[in-house]
């Protein structure tokens, strides 16, 4: 996160990440809800500092997939390895992965009974065992980074949607994660608040964070993504750089999807 100077400022997809190490490895991951197969042998490798945007129609399994990566959903077949730790039923592995993977949700899910500053500093204090003063200092720095230090003493219910989502990002960053997962983070926002959240995500991508982003924001995908994956019925139908994906899609399904949204 701190090596912002080493990354190129021109946007994600011009970077060469071939030498970077693997952060997330998924091998033939499958998941069923009852008889419905949500994920069908999904395999992918995500490199350090890479920004991957997952697109697809609703119900295609993209949210399920990224929720599997920090074990909010349990995959039934295949392997998921996050930063060399395999996700199994072993609680210690799950806790280790979760403390290294930050997640931001569509519905913000801030803790309504805690002030903004406590929302951000709670996990560092109790999970990372930081002294309270240090955790609060760090929380203030993060709130400054997402542009709302003046809201620190308020409760989430007193904030606008965009502000709440920025607090949620700060809360995830407070754990100093190596990977950030974004699950349709702008879908529940009013249009005028989408930009303020996307700007923060762009800056985060530029700072070298490994990111997986499920979104419907095509502009964001074009501008920031190193790689775009298109999902349909639990499978990755097509993947490639934004240029390839938006200009020369090979699959018919991708073309249909693009023609409907663009």
């Amino acid at each position: 996160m701190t090596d912002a100077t080493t990354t190129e400022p021109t946007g994600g997809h011009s970077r060469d990440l071939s030498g970077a190490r693997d952060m997330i490895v998924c091998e033939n991951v499958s998941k069923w809800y009852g008889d419905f197969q949500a994920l069908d042998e999904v395999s992918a490798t995500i490199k350090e500092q890479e920004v991957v945007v997952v697109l697809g129609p609703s119900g295609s399994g993209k949210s399920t997939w990224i929720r599997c990566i920090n074990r909010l959903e349990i995959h039934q077949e295949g392997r998921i390895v996050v930063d060399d730790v395999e996700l199994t039923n072993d609680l210690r592995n799950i806790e280790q992965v979760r403390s290294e993977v930050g997640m931001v949700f569509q519905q913000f899910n801030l803790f309504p009974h805690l002030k903004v500053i406590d929302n951000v500093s709670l996990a560092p204090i109790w999970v990372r065992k930081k002294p309270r003063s240090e955790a609060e200092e760090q929380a203030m720095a993060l709130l400054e980074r997402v542009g709302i230090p003046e809201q620190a003493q308020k409760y989430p219910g007193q904030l606008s949607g965009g502000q709440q989502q920025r607090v949620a990002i700060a809360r995830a960053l407070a754990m100093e994660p190596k990977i950030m997962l974004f699950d349709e983070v702008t879908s529940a926002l009013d249009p005028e608040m989408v930009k303020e959240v996307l700007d923060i995500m762009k800056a985060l991508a530029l700072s070298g964070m490994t990111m997986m982003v499920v979104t419907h924001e095509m502009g964001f995908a074009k501008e920031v993504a190193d790689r775009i994956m298109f999902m349909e019925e639990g499978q990755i139908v097509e993947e490639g750089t934004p240029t390839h994906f938006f200009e020369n899609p090979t699959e018919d399904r991708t073309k249909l999807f693009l023609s409907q949204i663009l």
Partner: protein
Amino acid sequence: MAGFGSGSEIASVAATATVPITAPPETPKLPPGEWVKANLFSSPFNSVLTVISTASLGFIAWFFLSFIFHPIRQWNAPATNLRLMMTRAYPEEQYLRVWACVAIILVLTGMSMAVWRAGSTMPVAGLGRKLLTTGALLVLLTLLAPFSTGATVQWLAAALVVVAIGESLRRIADRGEAERTVSTLTLQVVALAGVVTSLWVIPFGHHSYIPTRIPQVMEEPGTVALSTKLPWTIMLAIVVAAYFGGALLRDRLAKNTLRVTLVLLWLLAPPVLVYLILRDPDFDMGHVIGTDIPIFLAYAVLGSALLLWLTRPSTGEIGRIVAAMVLVAGFATFLSPMRMVLRLDMLLLAAFALAAPTFAGGSRSRNRYTGAWLLALGVMSWLITSVNTASTVKVPGGFFIGGIAITFMVAIFTIVLSVPLGIALALARTSTMPIFRLLATWFIEFVRGIPLITILIFFSIMVPLFLPRGMHLSEVAAVVIGYTLFSAAYMAENIRGGLQSVTRGQHEAAEAVGMTTAQKTVFIVLPQALRVAIPPLVGHCIGVFKETSLLAIIGVFDLLYIARIVIPGQTEFMGSARESILFIVPIYWIFCYTISKASQRIEQRTGLGER
């Protein structure tokens, strides 16, 4: 790290929020005559309803008043037996202890009110209107009551004073430009001061038994006895002083330290008051120094060492195994004969050991956790010692105290003990572990299927028979245990409702930042669940308070039993049950209403975050 996010956008949002909003048009105020016409006599049907309901209300009031003020009513029965109703046969020469307890509770109350900023303000004009209404009502009731001419004149004069004060307050309020307000706390203190002053001024009469060989009732003219009015005056002074003391501390000390200290003092107060002050244990110092203190020291030293090691972050998995072994050792102590205190201390240590990994961290948090262990161990050791020591307060018939004191004691112990048990049951019932879920569900459904009286009778009669040799449990303690189990089952269901109201998103958010299940439950789920559960929980607490009157059935001398059986059984007051019962109705009502009001305040306070 590239700067991102733009502060200016947010500032503009904040600025638009503070633009003054034009006030909505005021609803026109109707003059009284038109208001009555518009609201009470708007249609023939409405008029008939108004007339009929006014007539029935008047009839009910007249009926009650003529009952209360009928010359044959023996109101001197409750008046003479006030002490009996408060504490039953608690020795009069030791009454200073009772007043000390009241004083301690009042000091805590006053300080808590200051620290939590209790009370609110109300406009003076509103207060004036309220007094006017009260005065009018008083006039109405005086005319309905069967008073003698002299009494009627006195009551009417009192009503007129109230009306005059109300009217002048209204005038004062109307004169100023800005709205004048008055603190409700000031009003309460003024009202209490009025009541206390009335003890010194109004000739209620000095009611007492003359302690000769044949007890005789004496009623002297004049004000109440000095032994009543002097302590109450001091109590009022104490609560006011405690409030200002609390306000001073509030401005000097850190908020959280003060609050945590007060909550701890409140939790410590019931056992201290009952087992140390009121019961006056007859400590056998030889036994205390020879046995109790060494046991405490051994557990204190060894337990602290163990916990300091368990809370080291580097201890890891082996710590959990050791903690589980302590628990097994705790259960194993029941297999061989030994002192009960050894077993209970072991179980307490096991609980602390199991929770230790959650509190692992730097040296400060480790020391704090060990301090909590020492505090809990100290309180438990002292409590076990004093419960096992005979009381110096010797009264006829079992327990050393009765009346409203035992009503309070049973209610408070039951509520304080059943809250954590209820939370544990609710968590167990919603847990993912089938064995916990099954046990909790069975327990709750079983207990809820049994009438409370059955449980009370079972615990008062049967449980003492099952106890191991040499272990003694007083009937009241057995009953409190039974009542706690009963109450916890109901609380668990209320809390479970709260737990279900916490959304899945909250669980996921807590998990996503890497919290363990324990941390998620303590910091995220329970605070939200308990707030939702406040209204049903308070309803349940009021129920617990009132249903302590069922204790009468198993022979505990609670307030209702004394009013219903004991006082009417005195030769001087044969057949005065109705008076005594009517007398205790407002006592129960005042406390229940206070609890209810306090819970409304808590709801408002905790609702702050979800505007």
